[in-house]
């Protein structure tokens, strides 16, 4: 028929596409069954909370009464009246900017160096570097080192060597707290990225390096840039995501070492602020707004890092 309008053609095309999709779905019905168990749990306990946080961030919600819509009021309060939130945001950004990239690069360098070692020491050295990440509450040992009186190990040593005249309040003096926390966080958060780097490095085919040698690669830095890194971009992105996750989620360590709240909120993070409003004051709408801001910052950071990693080896 000649009178077919573009609209009818569009509808026919969409219908054909939908039919195709449906056929594909029926054809792969077993695969949906394979995915279903994980999908259901994932959607319920990981995805829904994110969506809920976003929705609740526009409400006043104190658990007892049903949520009441208040528009952007939570966000306005956060940025215009909540000075402590601004301090927390600033602290979190400082921690993220330092522990994120530094931790990430250290994790990769350690993994790369370890991969260069003879096989028999590799396992042991990997353990040494990874143990702090899995040791859980073991970071509390640092509390002994940084204790603020003259009996704290660091103070006692510095006093006996004559470096300082009186004990330094490492965990309660705002001048030092941030540095101390950064050291502890770096120590315990090589994390998942580090292991993934080692796994990624050891799966790279040896013959690629031999081929590189023939093509004129003359030292290990060239090898790293032209062969190793481009062949493990997946692992690199994974490491980056893990680093972003860890560096924006600092909160447990500050709470355990520097107290909650810490002196002058010197190491108060966004996560601390979130726990304060969510689990102590039960202002869930406000806490959700904090969580939403954190999500947005993390997603934006991930996009930026992804662009950078895409350029590796070019």
């Amino acid at each position, binding site marked *: 028929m000649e009178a077919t309008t573009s609209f009818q053609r569009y509808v026919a095309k969409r219908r054909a596409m939908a039919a195709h999709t449906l056929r*594909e*779905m029926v054809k*792969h019905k*077993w*695969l949906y069954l*394979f*995915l279903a*168990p*994980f999908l259901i*749990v*994932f959607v319920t*306990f*990981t995805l*829904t*909370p*994110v969506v*809920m*946080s976003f929705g*609740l961030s526009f409400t006043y919600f104190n658990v007892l009464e049903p949520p009441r819509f208040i528009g952007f009021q939570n966000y306005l309060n956060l940025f215009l009246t909540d000075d402590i939130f601004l301090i927390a945001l600033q602290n979190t950004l400082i921690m993220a900017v330092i522990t994120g990239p530094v931790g990430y690069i250290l994790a990769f360098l350690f993994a790369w160096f370890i991969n*260069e070692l003879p*096989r028999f020491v590799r*396992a042991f*050295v990997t353990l*040494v*570097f*990874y*143990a702090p990440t*899995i*040791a*859980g*509450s*073991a970071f509390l*040992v640092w509390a002994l*080192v940084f204790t603020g009186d003259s009996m704290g190990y660091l103070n006692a040593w510095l006093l006996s060597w004559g470096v300082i005249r009186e004990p330094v309040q490492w965990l309660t003096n705002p001048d030092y707290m941030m540095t101390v926390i950064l050291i502890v966080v770096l*120590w315990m958060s090589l994390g*998942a990225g580090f*292991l993934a780097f080692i*796994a990624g490095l050891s799966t790279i085919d040896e*013959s690629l390096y031999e081929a590189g*040698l*023939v093509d*004129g690669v*003359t*030292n290990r830095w060239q090898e790293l840039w032209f062969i190793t890194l481009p062949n493990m971009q*997946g692992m690199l992105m*994974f490491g980056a*995501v893990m680093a972003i*996750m*860890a560096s*924006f*989620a600092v909160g447990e360590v500050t709470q355990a070492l520097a*107290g909650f709240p810490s002196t002058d909120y010197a190491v108060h993070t966004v996560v601390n602020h*979130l726990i304060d409003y*969510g*689990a102590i004051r039960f202002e869930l709408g406000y806490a*959700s707004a904090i*969580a939403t801001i*954190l999500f947005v910052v993390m*997603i934006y950071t*991930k996009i930026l890092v992804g662009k950078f990693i895409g350029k590796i080896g070019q």
Partner: protein
Amino acid sequence: MDTLTQRNQVALDRIRRRKGRASRALRKPNRSLGGDIFIWIILAIFGAFFAFPLVFNINNAFKPLDEIFIFPPNLFVINPTMNNLLDLFVLMSRSWVTFTRYVFNTVYITAMGTFGHLFFASLGAFAVSKYEFPGSKFFFGLIITTLMFNPFVLQIPNFLILAQIGWIDTHWAVIIPAFGMPLGFFLLKQFMDTIPMSLVEAAKIDGASEWYIYARIVMPLVKPALLTALVFSIQALWNNPQHLFIHTEQLKTLPLAIQQIIGSPHAPNIARQGINAAGVLVMMVVPIIIFISAQSNILRTMASSGIKE
């Protein structure tokens, strides 16, 4: 450039010949002795920094009272004693809920959560990695994004959801959400992608079912990734106090029990330094031992499972 390539070709031939003779003592191409020494020095310095607190704590756990409070402190114990560990168990056995109950709860949660997680995640990862079907790409994109969302940040809405289901104050509140951790799924999918599709295609032509391909072809090849996912899962579950979801004392886990003994750094239990160290030792020994056994397995699997196209 030509001479360079030639020289490299010569080096490569030499390596190949040596590889034929003794494949173990092989020096890789493009390596300098200076670089190797540099690597050893860097790793030694940072290794000492990373190992010090843990070594110190392990030793503290076995120090008698007079050695714990000595200054300057000894890194290594001189007269090791089991008193601290024994005190820990005795102290806890007299408590209202016995120590073994906390241990059981933690082992139970960790084992159940990890088992379910590995099964669910590997099934799903297999479907997404080896087949393309409507929605698979979108779903994997979601996984990658949610990887960044620490459970810590999701805790509060999760509490509301769990309360709706009615799992608050049961072990299910910790076990079931662990099944859906995006981390293991992501890792397994990434590793499955490296398995040549030709293996799957060949099996399909032979008439193998999806289940057969998953269980008999793909799973044996992703053992390293499975073990890595296992370590992450155990690490997350073993160390997680979950104080928001479980209130009944009999259901609580080891980290909470240990925290109760240790106190906080700001109200520290000074007199119990030895027991503190013993408690931390108990907490860290399990993930570390599991990591060590899984790690040797990962390396062995890696060495023997090289798939070359």
